[in-house]
């Protein structure tokens, strides 16, 4: 599937590049970073020009993010309301959803910024969530553009530098992303474990003290 997108970008040039990056940014499972990496390599080999490539990448990615935001704003709040409704069997408690929403409101800007170039797989979901939470559009746009500048420059720059071996660089970026995500999850679990151990220790001490 990756080969298909790279082939059509190579064959049909800038318009197809813009369309694929736009669709990838909306949240569909298209390897946007890999395509930008390949485009950077093609620029080094003379098939594309960096002067056009970078603005095309940034405008397409930002456009896709904005569409995701609009979709979230229009329909996302219904999903959040459904999650917080009282029902006999719930997948997530309303308290957890409410805490999640408060947490997201505090860190929305950072979440939007980081998911443009670091945790790219979460970008589509964050756009929808930002829209659903009515995150102020100007702040969203600012974080989005700032993140996407890095999100485009990094893969295009790497592709340009390692032109002939951009595929191996793509695999390295994928491995790095997986490593960072696994590290984040491990840290969260460790923090939860330590908190629970301390809570249990405190409960035992209170029990002993009351006896």
């Amino acid at each position: 599937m990756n080969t298909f997108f790279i082939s059509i970008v190579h064959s049909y040039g800038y318009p197809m590049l813009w369309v694929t990056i736009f669709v990838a940014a909306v949240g569909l499972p298209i390897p946007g970073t890999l395509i930008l990496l390949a485009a950077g390599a093609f620029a080094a080999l003379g098939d594309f020009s960096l002067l056009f490539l970078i603005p095309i990448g940034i405008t397409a990615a930002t456009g896709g993010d904005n569409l995701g935001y609009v979709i979230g704003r229009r329909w996302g709040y219904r999903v959040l309301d459904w999650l917080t409704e009282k029902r006999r069997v719930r997948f997530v408690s309303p308290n957890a959803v409410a805490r999640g929403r408060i947490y997201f409101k505090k860190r929305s800007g950072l979440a939007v910024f980081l998911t443009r170039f670091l945790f790219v797989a979460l970008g589509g979901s964050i756009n929808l969530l930002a829209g659903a939470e009515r995150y102020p559009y100007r702040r969203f746009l600012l974080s989005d553009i700032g993140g996407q500048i890095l999100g485009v420059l990094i893969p295009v720059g790497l592709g340009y530098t390692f032109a002939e071996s951009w595929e191996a660089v793509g695999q390295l970026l994928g491995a790095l992303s997986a490593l960072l995500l696994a590290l984040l999850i491990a840290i969260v679990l460790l923090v939860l474990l330590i908190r629970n151990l301390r809570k249990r220790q405190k409960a035992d001490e209170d029990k002993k003290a009351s006896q």
Partner: protein
Amino acid sequence: MFKTGRKFGMTRRCFLWLSNLRGVSSVSIYRREKLTVVAFLIGGMVLLNARIKIALLVVLTLVALGTVAFAAITTVQAFHAVQQQHARARSGDVQAIRPWMTVHDIAHIYHVPENYLYHSLDIKDPTSYRRDDLTLLANRQHRPVDKIIRTVQASILMYRRDPPPPLASLTPSLSAQLIAEGVAA
């Protein structure tokens, strides 16, 4: 006991089924202790005490740390692969040719005239193939992409060994002969 189940959203049938399970038979004891809702079990919620929750967290943390170690090893291997691939391409190793490359890209990387490569692939009108990578080119010519890559590799090696005279002076039979000699070698 049933009221406890109703409080946490269980149906009567589900609650009785849970009560009969081994290890969950003492649900009536658990309802007097402080409980933590942790997970679902088909149509309801299983109530676990703090000890089991900590044990679960320990297991998950160990799994996460194992995943981090695996991801770190994969990253290091990927880094070595980048170094190797880059060195091979820079040294002009023809084994580094990939299906995503166009003939123009190959000519640029391996310093071989573009028309020479088109000639070796028996393409008389290169204009319509300029933006096609080797995969598309293979599809259009109804040939396997591996065969196209081998032909290109052979022609590059032959070009290096014995650069031909200017292409204008090559007859089709002479160029075919030169390429056949290169493939046989």
